[in-house]
């Protein structure tokens, strides 16, 4: 992508003309205006071109209106009126709209890399399922599939190819800093490809209303250098760090294992998120809570208070000591 450097420079220059005070809200881990991926850069580029173009037209129209307001009132000739309507009413808008259309069509392959040769580029392959109200993540590695949830580990500079679907309702996968949106539709498999360009932790959201806790259905994407990525994925593929003890016994006795898998233990449920390495994830409950002991205890007791409409039953009938043991056990699953 040779042109991306030039586009980036243009985007940077465009950003510079914008008052800094307006732009402070536009950076951070979840901003399409602070791109950290090739596709997101194209989106940002398109945004700035459209914004600047729109601003120029707006200024021109206002200037014309002010100028016309100052003219002496007198009838114009029929020929002048005809020329005004043809040029300003038809010709110029057609040219401008056609130019924007051509420009948009020209950008389209860049925004949809899975339709081009990029789809064939080797990279990380995976599958994401949007479920009310969390993300099931599966890495399709040469050695086999590895399941995780609510966090995607991606290598910087290499394409990530994801297939997307949903078992319940329509969701939309959107990590603004890395790429555009793509819907997850029951009964259909969509694809998205993106390439992170900067290491960092980016936040993604569900961008299609999917139910009570739609606003609490988020995920984190951690982009790291390829060597680090290989190390993290290998760790993700390993069985759980804790495969015995009071915590696991409770986990199985209280029915948690009916819905959750902890690889390396008898817990093999597939209804809810895989918890094999839940302790290593930065957040809890689909990027809703910090992943600390207090939050884990609160979530076990009252998941429905944290996320209305959640499928996880409340375990507020467990004695506090058991909740604490369970929460500590989950934290130890690094």
């Amino acid at each position: 992508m040779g042109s991306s450097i030039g586009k980036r420079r243009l985007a940077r220059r465009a950003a510079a003309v914008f008052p800094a005070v307006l732009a402070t809200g536009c950076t951070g881990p979840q901003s399409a205006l602070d791109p950290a991926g090739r596709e997101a850069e194209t989106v940002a580029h398109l945004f700035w071109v459209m914004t600047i173009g729109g601003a120029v037209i707006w200024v021109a129209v206002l200037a014309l209106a002010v100028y016309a307001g100052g003219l002496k009132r007198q009838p114009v000739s029929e020929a002048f009126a005809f020329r005004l309507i043809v040029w300003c009413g038809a010709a110029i808008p057609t040219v401008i709209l056609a130019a924007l259309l051509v420009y948009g069509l020209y950008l389209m392959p860049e925004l949809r890399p899975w339709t081009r040769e990029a789809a064939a580029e080797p990279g990380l392959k995976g599958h994401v399922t949007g479920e009310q109200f969390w993300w099931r993540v599966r890495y399709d590695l040469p050695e086999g599939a590895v399941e995780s949830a609510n966090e995607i580990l991606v290598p910087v500079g290499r394409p990530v190819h994801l297939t997307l679907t949903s078992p319940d309702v329509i969701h939309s996968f959107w990590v603004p800093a890395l790429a555009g949106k793509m819907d997850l539709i029951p009964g259909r498999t969509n694809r998205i490809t993106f390439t992170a360009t900067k290491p960092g932790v980016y936040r993604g959201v569900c961008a299609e209303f999917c139910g009570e806790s739609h606003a609490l259905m988020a995920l984190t994407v951690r982009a790291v250098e390829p060597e680090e990525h290989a190390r993290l994925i290998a760790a993700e593929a390993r069985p759980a760090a804790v495969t015995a003890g009071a915590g696991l016994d409770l986990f199985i006795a209280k029915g948690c294992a009916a819905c959750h898998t902890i690889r390396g233990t008898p817990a093999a449920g597939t209804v809810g998120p895989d918890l094999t390495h839940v302790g290593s994830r930065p957040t809890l409950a689909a990027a809703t809570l910090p992943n600390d002991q207090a939050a884990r205890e609160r979530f076990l007791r009252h998941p429905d208070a944290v996320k209305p409409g959640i499928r996880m039953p409340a375990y507020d009938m467990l004695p506090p000591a058991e909740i604490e043991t369970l929460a500590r056990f989950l934290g130890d699953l690094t």
Partner: protein
Amino acid sequence: MILTLRRAVLAVVVLAAGGLLFAWSGLFNVAASTGHWPVTAWFLHWVMQNSVGTYAMLTVESPPDLDDPALLPAAAGHYATGCAYCHAAPGEPQGDVANAMTPPPPRLVDWLPHTDWSDKELHRIVEHGVKYSGMPAWPSLLRPDEVWGMVAFLRRLPEMDPATYRTLAYGEGETPPTSANPDFDAALADCARCHGVDGAGRSTVIPVIGGQKQPYLAATLRAYAEGHRASGIMQLAATKTTAPVLDLLAAHYAAARPAAASAPAGEGAPDPEMLAQGEAIATRGVPNRGVPACLACHGVDRPEAAHVPHIEGQHAAYLDRQLHLFREEERGGSPYWKVMAVAVHEIEDDEIAAVAAWFARQPRFGAPGTAAAEPAPEAGG
């Protein structure tokens, strides 16, 4: 005298004031001892019949198969506890207090053949009771299935001979063992009328409880007594004794070892396809609709899951009904019931039937020689 609007209004006002004055004076006699005038009795009964007919048409769903004999023992047992005192029973007279009521409750054995209540109308009366008559509602409005059992029993009541009634309502004549605790002995005799002394259950709608986990039984009895699990029959039964006795009953039935029953009546062999579907749900669940595998918690090797009942070998009709109650979030029970309600929230009717049929055909818990009959091994693993 000419009728004018002014005079008409005045007359209405005077009548209303007179009526209020009469009510205030206390001269109207509400005593039950004097009975109703015939015209009052006729009018009240007429209003009741109309109301029952209309509400039965509007609110009562179609009955299940009321010829199923499995419905009778639990209904007869409950009739003996809650109904026979006022309404009499084959071989049993009405209580004296009942005869002093206004209106006097009918002796159903004689009265029912002279009425033309439909099944739905009887259901309406039994479930909701009748105002101003002393007829109470069913203790739980979440269990129309139990009320249908009572309707089935009422249909057979007029032709029932005293011996049949006694067997249905009081059990097969087994004598419960006696202990040093007369309260416990009395309560156990009461339970045994439907559940048997060994907890095998006398019909397919009465669960097997002999050999069930003790913490589950104790929590369930407490839930019935405190109104946290819906059942007109069991809520009444559990409030007839005290909390310590309920715990003794739980311990008794947990230790009981019912004889391995042959396939109970009314549970013929389901077709193999249905059993295969049931086994798939039991072992794998329905993951795409969020239904986990039943055996993840209900497996026979799960003694550490103290609040999760054994269901292997349980009656299919009982399991089917409970699964529906769980799915509709009406079941109640120990605080763990909500976990189950979430688990089966998206299960479908045919899946319920299949999984209930499959579990009913597994080797029964608590029967001699099964894993659950042995002492619980160390939790963990």
